[in-house]
């Protein structure tokens, strides 16, 4: 930390002496620019010809390359781990981590490449990231494809303008009748939104620094560039946002990565480096569900036709049975029923996958603690819709972990006087439902009062909710957090507060400026990127400490082998052959969501042997799912073959290894 303060002081000193402007751009902070990332990736390949190759997946509209660094021996058949970094294009630590990981894998960690291949995209959104290295500095993650954001008669005509010439696009504030913002007492840089409910009257309006170039009354509403490919992936894609693209996979960057992934079934795991962290907190299963619902109702007109109450709820198993009955289709699948119901895709992790994620998350948090990196920090981004990490689990079906490496440390809160019965969300979360109920009616009432729950929430109700499973302590903690946020919105923004505590120099002091059309305004506020980019040296040290865990994730991959083959003579020249195929890896193959979304192709067991007639069983048997940590399936055949013949059983998969055993037909009767 002291090093960081020293760096800031030094830079400030520089400003004073040289008058140099930008002190927070990528270059000044020591980050690799897009062309330097490209050079670094190419260098890794050039200097390690036996282990590394560069694929140019696509050119962006800004004429930059999407490069994929393929690490592993040339003819390797090993499962692959795909790493995609900085897809959002405005998260500097991500690309630094990806470059470092590549260097380690061809260097000190090269033994890992004997076991797995690694495909690394160190910079998924180079156009967007280039903005971090431009002056004036302006926080934008958009790629280079021009979009007419305001749908007027010109494209990209109203971008930001550095009016005060300080090298940053910050904010403008102006006292105005429509103002919704207030200064914060005893804090010269931060602003807060006026809370009318508390009698606060807004005073200032806040606008991004710039002028209304096209005279439409809006400032900076149609700047250069178009779309963030980081939110352009096809799971839970949001239409009509302007910045996410017109449809999923509409952008060159996202499409190139999707095409590559589907052409490479050996990809067994996806790691994303960006603003999300699914290792720190396992994604919850509390979103409004669709394909992962427990129960469904029938569409009204079908319910009428089938003579059932349209309000009545059915499980998927019941629906499949009803469907078979009604249609006579014996091969009716869950997929067909889902389509018939008209419900959308799964949006919550499959409950059978969750235990694996939870255990890996626990190990990650232990690791982070051990590394001394478990200080309280701001929450990473949650559930980004249309992101690559959501797509790779929900549609590509492979285990996916997102990691963010850094967020601002939480600002220290002034000690609040603890009310009788009060509890923090963290404390609440640690309690089981039963423990909480055991507090008793009185204590729970006190707790509800102290945490400001609406009066209609009685202790009895909460207890009932917990007993029925409608409510959990975890859900309650989440509700508390949301409530707290609402309260804090009356004060300064949590991120801004944290940034101020972390680095006071990340704010430009508000100073009067005579705006060409608005008149007297003040310009100031947060310097772009300062919440995501500490000096590169600082972040590199933190990345070095975290990468070993990401390497270790490869060790959790499923690994298929034939555990045992049993031959039993049933009659003269008639043999029963049994084989147990086992998954020795920690993770299931495929994931349960993968089984639902039919990716990847499951393991297949084949039986071959010359002069063998199969009496029962099939030469190819598909193993739908092998659970993790020893999950296994038995396959058996009854064959007609002379004694002493050799038959071969092999287990094959695209991304969990293959195994083969030859056995000779001999042995005693049953």
């Amino acid at each position, binding site marked *: 930390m002291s090093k960081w303060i020293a760096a800031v002081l030094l830079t400030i000193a520089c400003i004073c002496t040289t008058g140099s402007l930008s002190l927070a751009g990528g270059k000044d902070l020591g980050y690799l620019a897009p062309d330097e990332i490209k050079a670094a990736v190419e260098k890794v390949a050039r200097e390690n010809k036996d282990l590394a190759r560069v694929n140019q997946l696509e050119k962006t509209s800004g004429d930059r390359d999407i490069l994929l660094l393929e690490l592993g021996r040339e003819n390797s058949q090993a499962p692959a781990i795909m790493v995609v970094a900085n897809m959002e294009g405005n998260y500097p630590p991500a690309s630094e981590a990806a470059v470092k990981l590549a260097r380690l894998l061809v260097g000190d960690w090269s033994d890992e490449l004997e076991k797995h291949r690694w495909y690394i995209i160190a910079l998924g959104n180079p156009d967007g990231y280039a903005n971090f290295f431009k002056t004036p500095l302006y926080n934008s993650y958009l790629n280079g494809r021009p979009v007419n954001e305001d749908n007027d008669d010109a494209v990209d005509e109203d971008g930001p303008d550095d009016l005060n010439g300080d090298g940053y696009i910050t904010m403008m504030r102006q006292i105005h009748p429509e103002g919704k913002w207030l200064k914060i007492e005893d804090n010269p840089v931060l602003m807060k939104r006026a809370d009318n409910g508390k009698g606060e009257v807004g005073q200032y309006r806040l606008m991004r620094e710039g002028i209304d170039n096209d005279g439409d009354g809006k400032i900076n509403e149609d700047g250069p560039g178009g779309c963030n490919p980081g939110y352009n992936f096809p799971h839970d894609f949001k239409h009509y946002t302007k910045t996410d693209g017109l449809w999923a996979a509409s952008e060159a960057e996202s499409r190139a990565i999707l095409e590559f992934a589907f052409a490479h079934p050996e990809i067994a795991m996806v790691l994303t480096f960006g603003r999300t962290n699914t290792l720190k907190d396992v994604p919850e299963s509390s979103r409004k569900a669709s394909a992962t619902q427990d129960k469904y109702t029938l569409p009204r007109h079908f319910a009428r036709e089938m003579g059932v109450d349209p309000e009545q709820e059915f499980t998927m198993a019941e629906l499949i049975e009803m469907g078979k009955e009604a249609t006579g289709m014996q091969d009716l699948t869950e997929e067909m029923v889902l389509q018939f119901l008209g419900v959308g895709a799964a949006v919550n992790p499959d409950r059978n996958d969750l235990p694996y994620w939870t255990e890996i998350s626990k190990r990650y948090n232990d690791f982070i603690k051990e590394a001394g990196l478990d200080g309280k920090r701001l929450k990473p981004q949650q559930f980004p819709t249309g992101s690559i990490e959501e797509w790779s689990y929900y549609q590509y079906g492979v285990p996916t972990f997102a990691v963010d490496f850094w967020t601002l440390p939480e600002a220290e809160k002034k000690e609040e006087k603890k009310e009788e019965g009060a509890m923090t969300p963290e404390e609440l979360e640690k309690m089981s439902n039963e423990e909480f109920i055991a507090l008793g009616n009185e204590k729970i009432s006190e707790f509800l009062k102290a945490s400001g729950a609406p009066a209609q929430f009685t202790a009895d109700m909460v207890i009932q909710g917990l007993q029925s499973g409608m409510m959990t302590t975890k859900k309650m903690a989440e509700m508390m957090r949301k409530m707290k946020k609402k309260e804090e919105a009356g004060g300064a923004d949590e991120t801004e507060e944290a940034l101020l505590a972390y680095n006071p120099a990340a704010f430009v002091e508000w100073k009067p400026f005579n705006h060409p059309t608005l008149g007297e305004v003040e310009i100031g506020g947060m310097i772009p990127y300062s919440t995501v980019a500490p000096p590169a040296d600082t972040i590199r040290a933190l990345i070095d400490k975290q990468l070993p865990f990401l390497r270790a994730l490869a060790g959790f991959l499923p690994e298929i082998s034939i555990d045992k083959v049993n031959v039993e003579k049933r009659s003269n020249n008639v043999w029963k052959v049994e084989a147990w195929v086992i998954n020795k890896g920690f993770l299931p193959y495929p994931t349960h969501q993968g089984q639902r979304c039919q990716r990847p*192709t499951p393991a297949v067991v084949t039986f071959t042997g010359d002069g063998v007639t199969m009496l029962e069983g099939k030469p190819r048997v598909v193993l739908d799912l092998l659970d993790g940590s020893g999950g296994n399936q038995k396959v058996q055949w009854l064959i007609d073959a002379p004694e002493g013949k050799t038959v071969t059983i092999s287990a094959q998969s695209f991304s969990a290894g293959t195994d083969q055993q030859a056995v000779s037909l001999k042995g005693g009767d049953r």
Partner: protein
Amino acid sequence: MLKRYLTIAAALAILLAAAPIQAGKVNLTFDHFYDGPAMLQALEDLHQAYPTFTDLRSIGKSEEGRDIWLLTINNQATGKDTEKPGIYVDGTIHGNEIQASEVCLYLAWYLLDKYDSIPMIKELVDKRSFYIIPVVNVDHRWRFFTDPGGYNIGRTAMVPFDDDRDGLVDEDDVEDLDGDGEILQMRIRDPYGGFKTDPDDPRVMIRTKPWEKGEWRRLGEEGIDNDGDGRINEDGPGYLDMNRNYGFKWQPPYVQGGAGDFPMSAKVTKAISDFVMTKPNICFDYAFHNSGGLLVRGPGSKLAGMYSPRDVAVYDYLGKEGEKIIPGYRYIIGSEDMYTTHGDFDEFMYSTLGIYGFVGELFMSEQERYRPPDDKPEKEDEDHSYYGGTPQEERQKFNDNVNQGTMYRDWKKFNHPQLGEIEIGGWRTYTTRIPPTFMLPEMVHRAASLVIFTARQAPDVSLEVLEVKDLGGGLHRIRVRAANPNAMPSLSSKAVSKDIVRKDILKITGSGIEVVSGGIVMDLQFDLVRPVEYRPWMIFTSVPSFGKTDVQWIVKGKGKATITYDAVKAKNSTLTVDL
């Protein structure tokens, strides 16, 4: 001398530009289907015969490398194609729905051939651009004529896919076992098979009652179990349904079968969406399929949300007229009256780009009736009830007495390599969802008339000065009306509410004038005006269906003021006023 030449040249140029296009230049008949090469030849002939009215180009290649041909019909003498409302028409996105392409070809031929002889066609061709892609699924429609097909084979794009998820791709296709050039049905003797021979017609099988013993088990299409998994024909080539691969609320294959890996992952859907994005003037699309006799509008799924009442009114107007243009066809809503589809073309056009569109499901089994017009069949055909429901026995009569027995192949014994003695037979390739060729001429004409009617309803916006009032002190109030007599507004309600398309711009300019204010007139009599706060000389708006938009400006100064209407999906126009 030089001057004289120039005059002659100029006269020639005028003559050429106004030269009538000659009817009967290309003789196309519609009593047969155009196979792959014949379809292309016909398009080339049309282009060669009418070079200034047509443009024929490939917009991309399919999975198997075939060109996707686009025929643009536009009279260059009346303006560039993108300056006029564009009508997009395509056919056969599902490769086995072949007659859709004949409709597209006929439409193109009719618009060109009748340009001179039918005033309504001339007016339409002069005012619209037509973008016609007769064959979307170029691979499977081509193969429909060359490979032993079957009416259920060849719907999809030729994207390799492991249908049965056994790690092998496309390894268990159909086979023409008896070598008759067609893939028909197989049946095997089985007292528990659920079917028996119809006593009235030995070709027909009927379901047994639960207490009856049967004779037959149906085995599906001709073929063998190539991969030894106990199933026949379960992993043939092709898989991706292009009409589930488009980008609005696309859903993955486990939610929507055939969706493909991601939106526009097929080469053809990518090529078509890329093309459509270059023609923002397209205001309507007709996508032809078979069958069922349906005019289908979205929403295709609940996820797509409700359509706004104003757009529904436009759809209703066009759909209800359509029901009369093709008697018997029904105007329906896909997700409510049929089934859910995610990622279909029309939903993409409407919800992503704000373009109205219909699917035309051509032909219906009711047309194969064998009874007087007002006589209703006693029962529906339980196997093909979706396609309309003419009972099998009646269809057989239609086959025997109207088509001279060409529609059906009688059951014949065959020694199946894996199943032993079976029988092969059934409805032949060019039946069931495809009309007998004698019905084609009427089908293509009525369907083309549907497109022509719809195209006439694209927006035609005209400008009119309502008032120029001297307010004194050098100020004038100018009121202008933009009116549209047609059913389609200049922008769909979807385009406006989701801010998808740039709005129409009504603009006033003049060197001697200063625009003091501008706004949209809400009520002329009561002078209710919604002012435009910024850039008052430029008003962003749209012109409704069968309606008008009035605007007003207050300007200072004198001289000429030019008023322009600039629209993405309607033709621009200009007028001037003297102050």
